[in-house]
């Protein structure tokens, strides 16, 4: 390991000599400038947002009922999309991680395609599949009278389509690397496969499950392209916060800043809550 004697002395009195000579702690200097550029680039826009915030007008801007309607649509649709993703995405993640069948790699590539697909393309695809004249949508319309585009349900579908792969990828990795020995142990104790899944496998991947759900929720909350393409931009029905921000930007930039701040606050709140409540290392789940 590190030798305390090796290497020249650091700045006298300022640095602990313990770290001297540990090669894993020394930052290669060519990495520093680009890292600094990245920091500036990521923080500058947020700073700009805060600098330009019309703090005095904020109460008036936030009192706008349209803003609250958009927030309500955003929060409910993102939450429902996350719930749907959990119910069908977690089983799929297990299948992808553990089941052995031909074409598994292809299936994984296909279901995670929305990760790299431009969301607008996803919206167009949804329209042609589930729209009123779509491959499946026409029957939904004819037989059941169900129309999905330009409804709140349509927003949920668009968000689920784009966000679920984030959950699947995260949870699949956890299933893949979870301890099979514990599942064997459960079997020797008389536990059937589904009971083992429920009582051993799932609790053990809980941190990843939570991380995946948060990623999924955040992605759904920020969804724009697929939503506007498939569900439109009807205030109170399909207008989510990102759509409201975009629309406000053309009409009333101050309102756009206020709405953006709300989204920023929601994101930070979720992040902080999760860190405090569940993401502490070793936290009981």
């Amino acid at each position, binding site marked *: 390991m590190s030798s305390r004697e090796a290497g020249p002395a650091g700045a006298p009195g300022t640095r602990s000599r313990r770290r001297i000579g540990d090669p894993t702690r020394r930052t290669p200097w060519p990495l520093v400038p680009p890292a600094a550029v990245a920091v500036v680039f990521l923080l500058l826009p947020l700073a700009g947002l805060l600098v330009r915030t019309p703090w005095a007008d904020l109460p008036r801007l936030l009192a706008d009922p349209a803003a609250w309607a958009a927030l309500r649509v955003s929060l409910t649709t993102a939450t429902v999309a996350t719930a749907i993703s959990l119910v069908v995405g977690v089983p799929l993640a297990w299948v992808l991680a553990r089941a052995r069948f031909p074409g598994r790699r292809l299936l994984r590539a296909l279901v995670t395609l929305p990760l790299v697909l431009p969301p607008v393309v996803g919206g167009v695809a949804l329209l042609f599949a589930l729209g009123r004249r779509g491959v499946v949508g026409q029957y939904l319309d004819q037989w059941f009278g169900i129309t999905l585009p330009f409804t709140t349900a349509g927003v949920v579908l668009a968000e689920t389509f784009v966000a679920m792969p984030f959950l699947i990828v995260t949870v699949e990795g956890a299933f893949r690397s979870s301890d099979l*020995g*514990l599942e*064997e*142990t*459960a*079997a*020797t*104790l*008389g*536990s*059937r*496969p589904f*009971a083992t899944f429920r*009582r*051993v496998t799932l*609790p*053990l991947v*809980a941190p990843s499950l939570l991380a995946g759900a948060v990623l999924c929720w955040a992605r759904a909350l920020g969804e724009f392209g697929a939503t506007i393409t498939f569900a439109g931009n009807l205030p109170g029905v399909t207008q989510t916060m990102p759509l409201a921000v975009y629309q406000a930007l053309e009409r009333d930039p101050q309102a756009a800043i206020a709405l953006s701040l709300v989204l920023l606050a929601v994101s930070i709140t979720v992040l902080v809550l999760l860190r405090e409540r569940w993401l502490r290392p070793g936290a*009981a*789940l």
Partner: protein
Amino acid sequence: MGGSPGLAADVVVERGAFRLEAAIAVAPGQVLAVLGPNGAGKTTLLRTLAGLGALAEGVITVAGRTWDDARAGVFVPAAERGVGLVFQDYRLFPHLTVLDNVAFAARARGAARRIARRDAAGWLDQLGAGALAGRRPAELSGGQAQRVALARALASDPALLLLDEPLAALDARTRLAVRSELRAHLTGFAGPTVLVTHDPLEAMVLADRIVVLEGGRVVQQGAPAEVARRPATDYVAHLMGLNLYAGELVPGPGQAVALDGGGTLYAAGHGDQGADGDRDAPIGVGGRVLVVVAPSAISLHPREPVAGSPRNTWTGVVAGLELLTDRVRVAVVGTPPALVDVTPAAVAELHLAPGQRVWLTVKATEVVAYAG
């Protein structure tokens, strides 16, 4: 085979080039130790008994029930077998308390949480681990985790108890305490027990019978004392700390054995007449025999000894010295080679050092020959 009240297993498992072929039988209440080096197939045998792997050929029956029958196409999954398996690394569920770990089997079978926990608390008390009930596995010491793992296995009311290197993960001092404790608990278990270990002492202390597995084959089986006294292979002899030689009876006084590696050893009479004297049916000249000599029975001399009572005298060169707790084990290369135990004082007096020529003597009464 189907009517056996205990465990009867005729196991053939293939894993690539490795083939495990072993037949074992354990009566209810008996403990069988499967002793063998790493890679001998011990764990594979255990996993097959537990239902975590299937037989390629053969049959496993426990208490009259067939668990696996390759030819008849019977395979009972692990979850339906009722085995209590204590893994080497214990494998306690990290997300459950000790109490819920022990209650797991009952819960898996549909018992109400309250009842399962009450029974689990009873088992923990019985194993002297009642105070640990509320802890998480991460908060347990090795010895405590071992106890909890055993409680969890016993609480599942198993038809067969399986222990995989139960003491291997413990430090030396804990091992001593847990070993005697484990012996008591195993005695209290009414069903058959199979214990896998590479530690001969563990096998001696815990088991009623020993099966020695090497390279996927059973090379020896018998009562612990018998295996200890009459090792059948170099591996077992090495474990027991004995010198083992294979050879052939030749005409001569008493029992003269011409060793395969060269040299001759004289044994007095017919070996020892142990409890299993019938094994000692007289071996005729030309018969294959094994010869054991304890390292403590051999004496070392700096010069060729002049006329003495020991019948066996030969010479060799010291190859190495190893300090055991209270003596020094000297490896001597000669015909035959031998391990010799001497006191540290003797090492100093004789100036024993690698490369030095010595003479070895051993009395014929200390040389035991038996059919190999």
